[in-house]
């Protein structure tokens, strides 16, 4: 297959699968979904391999070149994010069916609708990672937002529906701001292609206003403090496989788009001051998210607030605009994606097995679910940034960048953030490890199958291995660093 064709397949295959999964009788969906996952994931990994071997790949759809046509573009960043999505999707395909069968609170229809919705979401993610056109990216944002909202609502309970509705309204508001910005850019320059826009951008009112609107819209979707308020409820009340998708992948897609727009289009008009604001908000998110996570009494809310904190790290790049920090930021997106997906799946397992999600009632539950709590600990190692995890490598790179630049507040924030992460993860493990668990089967307690326990363990192991193999993603990134980085 022509490598350029892979880009088209990576978007169209999940779309086709989503439609087929919607039409197919409910009995076939799990097998079809798993088969489709295998196909899509292999294509994504194949593309990542191709980019590693031969460098970036572009394709003009319908052979109409920009500015008239639409371009898809796969560089190192796209390849890494596509591979991350594939690596999360594979274990998820094993875990999700088992979880939906076991979870009674989610309606029976939730399991049936999960597959088409998730395939639409996957198509949207792939599209956003490959988009070379601002309006095409808007369609991707709409597809992703709508699928994410419906996935949250699969939780079925009142809390999930309320969180989904709030998420819908905010996601739509964010899309509207983004679209307004894109319209302004088109009105000023007459093109939508990212590269062409970057080449002809002028520092006038229209482009500044457009940048502000686009940034605000994407910040709402990425849930950077102070726009984080929708996230904990939405991510915590969704079914566990959905939480893993949302926290691990969906918030990263709008972040990657923001990264491209800032560093590939808008760098000529000088963004120093605005970048400092985003960096400072990132620090604030690390602190506030961690403090809130410490206060939570429910496991899934703790994990969701931890996402708010960990997303803060991603935004340090806007203040520390150097290559080291860029690599650190992308590596952090990858390691958090894997570790957080693992943690949410494990949290879902704990709720499933114990019948409750109160942290202080865990009473040595680790004795009952050793594998699941081992997964929590492994994922925690990456979130806290302890060696040799991917989280460690990412934070180390950012730390080095901050020290090189002499930016001491950022040095303190990066190290302090790790301590704060320990502050919310250790109590969880302490409750689970301390005390002896009553060996008798309590009411509501059940055993977990290996389909539930091994997928999150695999994800947590991958997050750990990422630190040992950090050179691989680095070599993918090294060719495609934006010229705007110092």
């Amino acid at each position: 297959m022509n490598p350029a064709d892979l880009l088209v397949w990576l978007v169209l295959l999940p779309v086709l699968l989503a439609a087929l999964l919607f039409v197919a009788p409910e009995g076939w969906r799990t097998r079809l979904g798993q088969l489709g996952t295998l196909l899509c994931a292999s294509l994504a990994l194949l593309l990542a391999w191709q980019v590693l071997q031969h460098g970036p790949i572009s394709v003009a759809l319908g052979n109409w070149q920009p500015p008239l046509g639409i371009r898809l573009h796969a560089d190192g960043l796209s390849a890494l994010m596509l591979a991350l999505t594939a690596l999360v999707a594979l274990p998820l395909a094993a875990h999700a069916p088992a979880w939906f069968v076991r979870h009674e609170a989610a309606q029976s229809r939730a399991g049936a609708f999960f597959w088409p919705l998730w395939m639409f979401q996957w198509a949207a993610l792939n599209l956003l990672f490959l988009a070379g056109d601002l309006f095409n990216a808007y369609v991707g944002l709409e597809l992703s937002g709508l699928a994410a909202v419906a996935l949250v609502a699969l939780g079925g309970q009142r809390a999930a529906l309320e969180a989904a509705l709030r998420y819908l309204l905010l996601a739509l508001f964010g899309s509207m701001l983004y679209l307004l910005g894109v319209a302004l850019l088109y009105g000023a320059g007459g093109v939508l292609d990212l590269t062409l826009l970057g080449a002809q951008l002028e520092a006038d009112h229209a482009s500044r206003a457009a940048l502000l609107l686009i940034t605000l819209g994407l910040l709402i979707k990425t849930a950077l403090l102070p726009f984080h308020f929708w996230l904990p409820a939405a991510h915590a009340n969704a079914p566990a496989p959905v939480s893993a998708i949302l926290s691990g992948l969906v918030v990263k897609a709008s972040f990657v788009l923001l990264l491209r727009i800032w560093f590939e289009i808008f760098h000529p008009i000088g963004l120093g001051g605005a970048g400092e604001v985003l960096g400072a908000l990132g620090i604030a998110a690390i602190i506030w998210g961690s403090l809130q996570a410490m206060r939570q009494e429910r496991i899934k809310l703790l994990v969701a607030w931890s996402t708010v904190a960990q997303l803060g790290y991603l935004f340090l790049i806007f203040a520390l605009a150097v290559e080291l920090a860029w690599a650190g930021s992308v590596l952090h997106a990858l390691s958090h994606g894997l570790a957080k997906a693992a943690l949410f799946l494990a949290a879902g397992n704990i709720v499933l097995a114990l019948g409750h999600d109160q942290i202080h009632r865990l009473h040595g539950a680790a004795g009952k679910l050793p594998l699941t709590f081992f997964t929590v600990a492994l994922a925690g190692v990456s979130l806290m940034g302890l060696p040799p995890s991917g989280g460690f490598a990412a934070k180390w790179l950012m730390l080095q960048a901050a020290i090189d630049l002499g930016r001491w507040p950022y040095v303190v924030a990066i190290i302090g953030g790790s301590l704060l992460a320990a502050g919310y993860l250790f109590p969880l493990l302490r409750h689970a490890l301390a005390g002896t668990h009553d060996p008798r089967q309590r009411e509501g307690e059940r055993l977990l199958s290996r389909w539930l326990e091994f997928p999150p363990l695999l994800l947590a192991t991958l997050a750990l291995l990422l630190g040992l193999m950090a050179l691989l993603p680095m070599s993918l990134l090294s060719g495609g660093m934006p010229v705007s980085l110092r």
Partner: protein
Amino acid sequence: MSGVTLALDLLLGLSLVWLAWRTLASPTLFGAIVLFIAFGLLMALVWARLDAPDIALAEAAVGAGLTGVLLLAALADLQQGDNLLPVREPLRGWLLQLILALCALGLFTLLTLALLGLPSPPPSLAGQVLPRLDGAGASHPVTAVLLDFRAWDTLLEIAVLLLAVVAAWSLGSHPHPNPRIVGSEVLQGLVRVLLPFAVLSAGYLVWRGGFAPGGAFQAGTVLAAAGILLLLSGLGRPFNGRHWLWRALLASGLFIFTGVALGTLLLGGGALDYPAGLGYGLILAIELGLTLTIGLTFIALYAGEQDAAEERE
């Protein structure tokens, strides 16, 4: 611009803002919906004044017509349920209101500055579209952009439409909201007369889209309107969304579009690069599929996955 048209434009613009404000300030949901429908109709006029007849048609049909029907149906559902939500919680605290007002003022200033600074005439790709129409599968520039130059966007938008149905149905079925009007002889007589014309105009709009304003979106909404009238009059029953055949029909536009994209890719020409000579035929096939999908999508959003009465049986 003559004085009369300037006055007309000013009147249109001001009424639009006034209607938007009244919609938001309306004390009842029903009043807000009616005002919103009026807003959509006025918006369609504005698009027509801006020389965008395609958007005007779509706005009138979707923005005012079908959205209005969906909102009214949702309202009927809300009123049948016992858990009526509070209509409006006023924003608490003058400080919050002040901050919001300042934000809105800031945005307004920013947008005004930005718009005043835009080049005139605005740069656009129209100049590049027209000379290439010969190579495209449609001679109407809007259709050529939607189904050839930027067909990729349109394909994914159809995916969004199908996703909307999947998302709505995943929430569960809801009671079919027409118990009172069923059996009205006047309505049934009217629908019997209108239906053939509606189907005919839908077909005409698709065919016309190749060379003039029209196309699948407008045709699909006309079809949807006919379907919803059929349901409202009681002459038709909602289809059973559990059946795979109906679902396949719902997705038909997406299947055809994706099939064409992947087919052209497999034949070696590049995705959505229509082979020479086949462009018109392929675009027409895609448009027919899209018309069916768009029409059924709106009906599906209106009627739900399955008739509640049927489900009880």
